[in-house]
């Protein structure tokens, strides 16, 4: 029994030491506490899962995308074969490619719902305008990601859909011709196009997507979700006011006792440093 008690207290001491050590050097404990226990509106909780579902699906995209890269070969001779190998031969290849494909499909649908929810609840209103703009940028990036991913299979569907897509893009006034020529790496969809779409799909666009997700989340945390923020700040302010009054009352009591003791020393009437004391305590 004494043994268990000792182990317990030693474990508690050790974990306390680790937590303090990390907190002192990184502030991670305060940060975690801040992130985890932030009050959020209860009323829209299920609606707000649309945003986190988007984040989850993008995470799935990143993870399965990395795994697909272990086998995928971005050349016109091998691209289709490598995708076929992933689908038919590789360990869990069908699952990994399936998750990449289906989570991409869900992603587009969930983003649509997420946008609709924010639009119809007026979530873009001041001071959250910029988060809406960042959201639209994220939508556009995801659409381009979806488009560039289609060609990488190098099958009939992906190939000819990309040909049509490039054709449509070339009708863009003024810049269309040059932009499409750059994307194709020539005049027609060919080896250079596959390389460029590959570079865009696995490097440039994810790299662009990540910081915008960061900004989106930062702004979300800064302003809170739609509208309800003010309700709980008011409530928290009221709690702190109550606690202050309570503490004040308790202090008053202590002070009374002290006053009685200190009376002989002539400090009884000195309330001057009370505010100071209060500050140091809180």
């Amino acid at each position: 029994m004494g043994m268990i008690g000792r182990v317990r207290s030693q474990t508690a001491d050790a974990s306390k030491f680790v937590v303090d050590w990390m907190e002192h050097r990184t502030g991670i404990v305060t940060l975690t506490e801040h992130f985890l226990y932030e009050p959020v509106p209860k009323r829209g909780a299920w609606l707000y899962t649309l945003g986190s579902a988007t984040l989850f699906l993008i995470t799935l995209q990143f993870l399965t995308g990395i795994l697909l890269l272990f086998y995928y070969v971005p050349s016109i001779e091998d691209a289709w074969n490598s995708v076929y190998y992933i689908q038919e031969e590789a360990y869990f290849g069908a699952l990994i490619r399936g998750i990449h494909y289906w989570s991409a499909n869900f992603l587009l649908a969930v983003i649509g719902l997420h946008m609709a929810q924010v639009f119809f609840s007026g979530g873009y209103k001041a001071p959250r305008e910029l988060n809406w703009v960042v959201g639209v940028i994220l939508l556009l990036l995801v659409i381009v990601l979806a488009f560039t991913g289609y060609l990488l299979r190098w099958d009939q569907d992906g190939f000819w859909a990309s040909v049509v897509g490039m054709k449509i893009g070339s009708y863009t006034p003024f810049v269309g011709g040059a932009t499409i020529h750059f994307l194709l790496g020539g005049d027609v969809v060919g080896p250079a196009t596959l390389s460029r779409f590959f570079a865009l799909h696995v490097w440039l666009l994810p790299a662009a997507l990540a910081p915008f997700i960061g900004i989106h989340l930062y702004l979300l945390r800064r302003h809170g979700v739609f509208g309800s923020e003010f309700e709980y700040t008011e409530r928290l302010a009221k709690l702190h006011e109550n606690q202050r009054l309570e503490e004040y009352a308790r202090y008053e009591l202590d002070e009374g006792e002290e006053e009685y003791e200190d009376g002989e020393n002539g400090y009884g009437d000195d309330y001057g440093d009370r505010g100071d004391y209060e500050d140091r305590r809180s």
Partner: protein
Amino acid sequence: MYDVTTGKARPVEEEIITEENVYDRPDETIGFFPGQVLKDLYVAFALLVACIVLSYTIPAPLSDPANTASVDYVPRPEWFFFFYEQMLMFFPGYALISFGAVVVPGVFVVLLMIVPWLDRGPNHSPLKRPFAIVVGLLVTVTVVLNMLLAVSRIINFPGQ
């Protein structure tokens, strides 16, 4: 603020707020953890299960290897481009395609970006911003209708 249905005895102004009940109001807030996190995890889990099940029941498609010489292959965009493809049908010919394919969507994207500055009123409630809501519904209906049109076209004329 004061929700009769939750049986709260007092309106929020009179309630005594303590450490325990500060996030308690059922009509107000929950802690991000575990309240919101749990709900997020339920949804994420459901999506993951759906993806896994679909991976095996409806495997990710892979058609024949690309044949650059074939001239009669009719490509299908993915479903989320259906409405865009369908919209192009309304802008036939070389004179209009640039307008329909690029200018109209471009204007739409710009309008989408500046939505917060187009609807600047102080009200959040959908009931108090009829104009924004009607426009939003029209856009939604247009997109959905175009998608349905594209689907019906694909079903009715598989080869085109």
